[in-house]
């Protein structure tokens, strides 16, 4: 089964002096993700919902093996990010705003380049590329340098490139951030397509409506801790009005009363 299981993930960062100032703290260590566990299933979209600085990106980076867990592990199917990060990278498609494409190259060039690095046959590359470029309206911009593309088009190219190897697991960090309504809509539609194709999809967001519209399962993460994790249906049941916003604010308030997670 193509499940993705995060098990007791913990990640601590050492803060530099500058960061201590920004975070207004004297502590040298920042627990970004604290004993986080959840499971995402194939054919579903799992939404990691949390305010800025909650630890969402850190969690997704750990899944994508860009950073190593301090403790805990993540199993992508059977594969552990700790023991076999290279195989994990071959199985997942990861998208985050911090992964940039080089301005100097064209979508066409980059698509082929990253496909080759994933070890894909040339014929398959061409087939997938044509289909994808058609689907996202990239075709007419295929020879335009990335630096000259609009933000929305760049994001579409990034999505195309994150999926060159047709991965079973798709991890998107704030995929609609900074996009115009139309592009955001087409990205969301595509995520639903992926889910319907049986992919295991995880996305992070701080936007409640994205969760409402897309997710089958939701994990609410605040200050690095998982506060609530269930199917969207069950989560909504916890509020008399089935209002996700109310539930979310209650959890944030509760966390503030506790004086943060640690």
């Amino acid at each position, binding site marked *: 089964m193509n499940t993705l299981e995060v098990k007791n993930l913990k990640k601590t960062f050492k803060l530099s002096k500058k960061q201590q100032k920004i975070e207004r703290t004297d502590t040298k260590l920042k627990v970004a993700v604290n004993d986080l566990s959840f499971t995402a299933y194939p054919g579903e979209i799992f939404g990691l919902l949390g305010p800025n600085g909650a630890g969402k990106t850190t969690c997704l980076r750990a899944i*994508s093996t*860009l950073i190593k867990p301090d403790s805990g592990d993540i199993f992508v199917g059977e594969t552990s990010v700790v023991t076999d990060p290279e195989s994990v990278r071959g199985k997942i498609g990861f998208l985050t705003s*911090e992964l940039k494409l*080089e*301005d100097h190259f064209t979508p066409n*060039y980059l698509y082929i380049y990253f496909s*080759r*690095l994933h070890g894909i046959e040339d014929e398959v590359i061409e087939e997938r590329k044509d289909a994808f470029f058609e689907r996202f309206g990239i075709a007419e911009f295929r020879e335009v340098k990335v630096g000259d593309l609009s933000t929305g088009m760049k994001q579409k190219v990034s999505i195309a490139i994150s999926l060159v190897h047709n991965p079973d697991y798709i991890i998107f960090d704030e995929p609609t951030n900074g996009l115009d309504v139309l592009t955001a809509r087409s990205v969301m539609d595509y995520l639903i397509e992926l889910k319907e194709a049986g992919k295991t999809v995880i996305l992070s967001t701080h936007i409640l409506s994205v969760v409402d519209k897309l997710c089958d399962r939701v994990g609410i993460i605040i200050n690095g801790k998982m506060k609530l994790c269930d199917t969207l249906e069950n989560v909504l049941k916890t509020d008399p009005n089935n209002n996700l916003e109310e539930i979310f604010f209650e959890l944030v308030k509760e966390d503030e009363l506790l004086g943060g997670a640690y």
Partner: protein
Amino acid sequence: MRNIFTIFRKEFFRVMSDRRLVFTAIILPGLAIYIMYTFIGTAIGGEVEDIVEHKMIIYTENMPTDFQNFVYAQNINPEFHDYDPNNHEEIEEQILIGEVDMIIIFSETFEDDIDNLVISEIFIYFNPGEKYSNYAYGQMTNVISTYGTIIGLDRHGDSYYAFMVDSGIIMDEEKAAGQGFAMLLPMLIIMFLFSGAMSIGPDSIAGENERGTIATLLITPVKRSEIAIGKVLSLTAVSMMSATSSFIGIMFSLPNLMGGAGAELDVFIYGVGDITILFSVLLATVLVIVGLVSVLSAYAKTIKEAGMLIMPFYFVSIGLGISSMFSGEASSELWVYFMPIYSSVNLIIAVLTFDISLTAYLITIGTSLIYVTIFVFILTRLFQSEKIMFQK
């Protein structure tokens, strides 16, 4: 392997398809040399000091004690040896290789000639191609002419033309030209190899980190070591092109470069073998420089920081290149060939002066490969380090 090639090709294409980079990395170095030679011409003056400190070795025949004392009185302290005509060929050979600076032959009847107002002939053999010999010649002819004036006044109360100096030139033209190259080229070569690597390395590694594009590469299943090797090789290729451009620049500007310096520098004194060896040394050197520049660039978080980190290494390396201007010959100490860059400088000199030793060559190539392997290893570790790659 396939991944290395894919990365290599993309990195190489990155540079080649960018007019600005092609200009700064490949064309500019060759052009810059035209501006450089004026500066170099001045720098050669600095060589004098070393020559003055060198102890002259002079073979003499029939040298009057009075003259010898006069030389010492001028604060010149050559090592005088007695000349034996039977050993002439041996001594000449030593002058040729620079171990003896000159032969001065006074006439048997020198003292009588002066007393009888006969113009006596002094014959000097020297090698204008050896800097010490050339300098000694200038010094001694000066001393001789002063001595002539003084002795004339002393003995005849008048200055008269006491003796005539004639000279025989013992010189290996090719070696002389080779020395000219050896003085100039190592510094220039190191400079241009560095500038090639510096014009693209920081952008290709620190720049990619700064712009967040390297992370896109890091989430592919490609091994970090493959990324490191691919990058180093493409940077090497571009740096070699840059070095070649510099080389062409040097060749074209040579006549101007040497200008009044006397020695005729003709590149064609070198055979295919010499050029091949030189090329392999350059390649090994570029690998080391690129490895170093890459590691520093990966460690730095921004292009600017990378540039600042590289600068000290750049200056030290140029310093090592400049050191060749003073020595003019390759070091015979073996340890020198274990030192990165410094080994290259000495080996370049060795090739240019037809003085190459196989051991030194093999050590230089071998250690350079070891150094670049170490750099690639460190680079791989840096790419693996989330601190380096993902520090906010």
